[in-house]
């Protein structure tokens, strides 16, 4: 009980820190804020239920007014803004990522986590995100989808990093990777 709650709290904090730490810039020049990677990690490391809880905890603190979203955004205003769909999608994405990782517990960690992060953290996340943009900005689904295209390469890299990190974590601290037990 205590262990689960501290790990959930830790990953909620990790999502925040990954959004605040100076962003990594890749050799190709694609800047990535690592916040989305935090969402993926919640799923791949903590599993479905605990991963989603960690993300909900993070969003709760954002709503309560802590400026924890990438770029120092926070407060109730972000839930009235155009990116609200992604915020709603965050816990769903973590849940699906976690569920896929759990289901593939027979496969090696890296490919399982990679597949889970791509399906959960990108495909599943984009659906509410795009719907949110159509509702808030009065775009059609098609326009909103096209506007998301530039983010896909960065998000694929993030999924790769999240999977690599999960695999190394599994090697170093197997007991802490709760999605694998």
């Amino acid at each position, binding site marked *: *009980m*205590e*262990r689960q*709650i*501290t*790990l*959930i*709290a*830790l990953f*909620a*904090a*990790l999502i*925040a*820190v990954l959004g*605040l*730490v*100076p962003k*990594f*810039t*890749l050799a190709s020049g694609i800047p990535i804020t*690592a916040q989305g990677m935090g969402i993926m*990690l919640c799923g791949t490391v903590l599993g479905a239920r605990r991963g989603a809880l960690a993300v909900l*905890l*993070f969003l*709760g*603190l954002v709503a*309560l*007014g*802590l*400026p*924890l979203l990438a*770029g120092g*955004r*926070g*407060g*109730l*205003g*972000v*839930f*009235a*803004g*155009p990116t609200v769909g992604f915020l709603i999608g965050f816990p769903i994405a973590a849940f699906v990522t976690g569920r896929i990782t759990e289901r593939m517990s027979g496969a090696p960690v890296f490919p399982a986590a990679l597949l889970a992060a791509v399906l959960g953290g990108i495909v599943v996340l984009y659906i509410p995100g795009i719907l949110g943009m159509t509702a*808030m*900005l*009065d*775009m059609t689904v098609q*326009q909103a989808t096209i506007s998301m295209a530039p983010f896909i390469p960065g998000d694929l890299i993030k999924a790769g*990093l999240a999977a690599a*990190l999960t695999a*190394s*974590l599994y090697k*170093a*601290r197997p007991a*802490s990777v709760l999605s694998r037990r």
Partner: protein
Amino acid sequence: MLTLTSDIRTPYHGLRAGVKLAALCGATVGLFWLPNPVAMAGGLAAVAGLYLVPGWQFLREGVRLLKPIWFFVVLVLLWHVFMQQAMTGAVIALRLVAAVALANLVTMTTRFDDLIDVVMWLLTPLRRAGLNTAPLGFAIVLVVRFIPVLMDKANKLIDAWRARSARRVGWQVALPITLCAIDDAEHVAEALRARGGLNAPQDP
């Protein structure tokens, strides 16, 4: 602590947090009913008026908090002008600014602790149903404490990298950061269990 609450004292600080949140919900729904740009501009003017009650300085602070949405406002306006629906674009852009500004107003004038109290109050039905909601309050405190600790650890590891390598700090640093964090979490959990766990009496 790091919050978005404004330092400027306003009459709104005195209102109950729950009342403000309920009013915010009502007002945001109301904004979606305003049909044309004139009415919506009126709505936005009313919001600006609320910001003006405490003074210009407060309004300026509020405008600064709106920075992240200007990009979307410009995008919406350009798109709708391009599609020759400037009126619709104006309504959406005005509504976006008004809704976000209104929500920010609640955030700026409500203390973090008061909002946590509202959350715990909202959870009362769950408590009545026999669910233990104390871990949530505990988890909130843990996150708030973990964030600066983690930031500090991350910065130290990044400094260590910079001191030893000519290359730029790369993504590889994420693994030691996460490992440190997980070890910390396990220690905290162990310490908690050693002190009787979450179900131990809270106030001695």
